[in-house]
């Protein structure tokens, strides 16, 4: 009886060992919420050359640094109509994450900042609570010069925090989903 018991256990274990030697490869995962691309298109309201700011990081959390490009210089004291496009370019066709952000607009807000007073921004859109989102915005350039222009996307910010709805990130809290810095020149 005991012998049988032992044999049964051993056979069972042997079967487990042999059963698990399949050679199926695991399924590849392409990160779903990955943001690879931030593209800001800025069109001068009174005509002229538009400017595109773009940051592309195809390996996501991988070690490669984002590739940042600025299509040209801004004109001084000019108002631009800005539009943001957030994409996942590792998928074909590219996944438009802007739409997801707009679906949950109460939980997202873009913030813009610049150094050397080269530009100021205002929001052109609102979520259902009347708070800004920032996918659409206006940018007014200052006098000629150069500086850094930063676009930040916060997830679950405190939109009712002090000055948050005018675009001040200081009291926004939440988590950063996007943060890209563009070196721009105003002529």
């Amino acid at each position, binding site marked *: 009886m005991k012998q049988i018991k032992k044999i049964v256990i051993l056979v069972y274990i042997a079967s487990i060992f042999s059963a698990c030697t399949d050679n199926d490869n695991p399924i590849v995962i392409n990160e779903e919420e990955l943001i690879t691309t931030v593209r800001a298109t800025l069109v001068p309201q009174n005509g002229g050359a538009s400017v595109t700011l773009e940051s592309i990081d195809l*390996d996501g959390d991988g070690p490669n640094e984002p590739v940042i490009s600025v299509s040209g210089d801004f004109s001084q004291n000019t108002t631009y109509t800005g539009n943001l496009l957030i994409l996942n370019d590792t998928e074909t066709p590219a996944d438009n994450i802007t739409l997801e952000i707009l679906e949950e607009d109460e939980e997202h807000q873009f913030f813009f900042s610049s*150094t050397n007073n080269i530009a100021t921004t205002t929001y052109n859109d609102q979520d259902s609570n009347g708070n800004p989102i920032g996918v659409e915005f206006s940018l007014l350039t200052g006098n000629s010069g150069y500086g850094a222009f930063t676009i930040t996307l916060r997830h679950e910010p405190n939109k009712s925090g002090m000055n948050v709805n005018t675009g001040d990130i200081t009291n926004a809290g939440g988590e950063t989903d996007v943060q890209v810095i563009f070196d721009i020149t105003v002529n």
Partner: protein
Amino acid sequence: MTLKLFLCTLFCCAAFTSYTQKCAYTFKGTITDYHDGTSLFGATVYLKKLNKYTISDDQGKFEFKNLCKGEIHVFISHISCESKELKINILEDTSKEFNLEHHTEELKEVTITSALELKTKTRQSTVLKSDVIDTYSSQNLGDVLKSISGVSSINTGNTIVKPMINGLHSSRVVLMTNGVRLQDQDWGIEHAPNIDINTAEKITVIKGANALEFGGDAIGGVIVLEPNRIIVKDSLYGKSIVSGQTNGQGFSFHSSLTKSTKKGWYINAKTTVKKYGDFESPDYILTNTGLNSSAYSLQTGLKKFETGFNFYYTYLKNEIGILRSSHLGNIEDLVDAINSDRPFVIEDFSYAINEPKQEVTHQLIKVDFYKRFKNLGKLKVQYDYQNNERFEFDLRVGDDRNKPAIDLTLNSHTVKTSFEFDSKSNQTYKVGLMGGYQNNFANPNTGVRRLIPDYDKYDLGAFAIGNFLFNDKTSLDFGVRYDFNYINAKKFYLKSRWNERNYDADFSNLIIVDFNTQWLVNPKLKYHNFSASAGVSHQLNEVNSLILNYALSNRAPNASELFSDGLHHSAARIELGDLRINQETSNRVSTSYNFKRDKTALLVELFFNHIRNYIFIEPNGTEQTIRGAFPVWAYKATTANLFGIDITWQQKITNRIHFKNKTSFMRGKDVDNNRDLIDIPAAKTVNNIGYSNKKWGNFNANLESNFVFRQNLFPDNNFEAFIPTTNSNVLVDVSSTPNRYHLINFNSDATFKLSQKTEVTIGITVTNILNTNYREYLNRLRYFADDLGRNYLVQLKFKY
């Protein structure tokens, strides 16, 4: 008992009068020890119906004359033996041999008990008994173990608590529960052991790798949890513990019931349920730190002296909330968090557990069988299967909102067998074999690249240990063990990561499929591990004794150390393993000095642990992504020296007042780089003054002062990062350690008999009485929030 015997005797006397047959038979016998075959002198042999007594002589022999034909009831007993009862039919002159289990106590208390035991005399081990464990019924394994000098914990908040022995944790600490080595993804700091402490009646901590039968890779030590011993008699007993506490506004309930029979059959069922809401620091609510836990276990079997079997099943499910404010976006959020005194998210108290959170389910099935062979020893065969399912939920957007970010299933099968040669009382040997198979499956439905890949792991091990008792004063043990580990993994690497790590040069032959931006790679890793241990203990005189230990152990790197690769949102860091990491080799020397006199007990334990290829994780620069910059935490290997001292001192001041001190101090040095190691526990001293009075319902009251020094010896891994919002470069201080802290705790309990067999113990505990604000170096959430504030806990324990 005596009453029973007396009644029995009376009854027998009454029955005896009716016998009138021919009565001239002789019944002779020899009584020997089961294990070594030696004769037992002084065993009482009692013929029940006849009410006849005799005692065995120095050769274990006895004789009854003038017996009548018919059945007799023989009852044999001996001091410190299990009594034996049997029926014999007398048809002629009869001669028989009887085996008694001579040292029952010693055998049942395998591996542990006090320092008086042969088997553990040579190790640095400490035992926690059920009265201590019951006090911690509502808490974690890691919490109860901290009451041992030299044992600390590494935490993620206050509900994810990993035990740390002399500065070592995770895969370096082997956890044995009811004879089974726990296989539950123990690699990560935020992976707490999946054990309900209420399943244990006794917990033993063995420092260092000197318990080779449990594994050769226990560089830190072994924690052995054992369930209650089954008493072989007809009985039904149990206990229930109910605790309620103010911090977390939660409760814990535990109940267990055991039914056993004289024939050795038993069944035991246990359940534990815990529910806590958000815990509180002195100044604010720690939002999203609740816990839901439920555990069930069932054990049944047959326990006889010569043979028996056990079946064991446990189920444990934990749903653990992780501090909301610890979930970060990028390095800027981390800098803000470090610089802020308060967490960013503080909401009203709630029982809700939202993301970030963990849901872990662990199931274990064990079957074992044993048989004793006369004059030889005991054979054991065991099989166990464990299933560990782990979900980690991050804050996600859109359709992925309710999807886990980590979804791992770990299945482990282990079969092992051992033979213990215990027939000689001055030397015992044990040999054993084990084989294990483990499969890790990372569910691709998460939509997040796997942090830990799919893998198969095979283990084979063999060991031999021996214990020798030279004389009353000196004993010696030695052990050798060999383990073979084979890991066959299939892992995706981003091509950019593969190149950045320079894997192309060494591992390009491992690539099996090209997936555009990723490689599928098939590492097959083999490790041969050799371990050895030796220990000697010597009783210098009545009050002084010494233990000296040496252990060589090897540990193969775990899946996390090899393969980690990705962004850990709950920590805002990129964690990277390294395929090139080799196994760790530890040489540990330790010594204990024990002083015991009527009122004083002092134990001083020293250790020195030299670890070649010591694997650890620490900050290693930053990487820029579209979300901003992230700190990179990389696994590395170095040569490490760890050394320290643990002191336990107990002093009786009067018969009712006692004082206890537990102090531990250790250091960890990175020898290769001549600097301090990260995550080494700070020096700590715990002083306790207690009053107990047996006359007042076993009343106890203890006032405890818990002083933790600041860890001044830490590596400087700070780095600079550019913060766009403020347009400045700032120093990211991830290294600085929190200030020293001092906590005062109070605990009191009393026990009252409700009836002959039932009693109730009422306990009151207050922790952090002064509501001190503090942060602990070894709590990963120390950047974000203070630790727990004052807590009142009331506990009722019923035994029946």
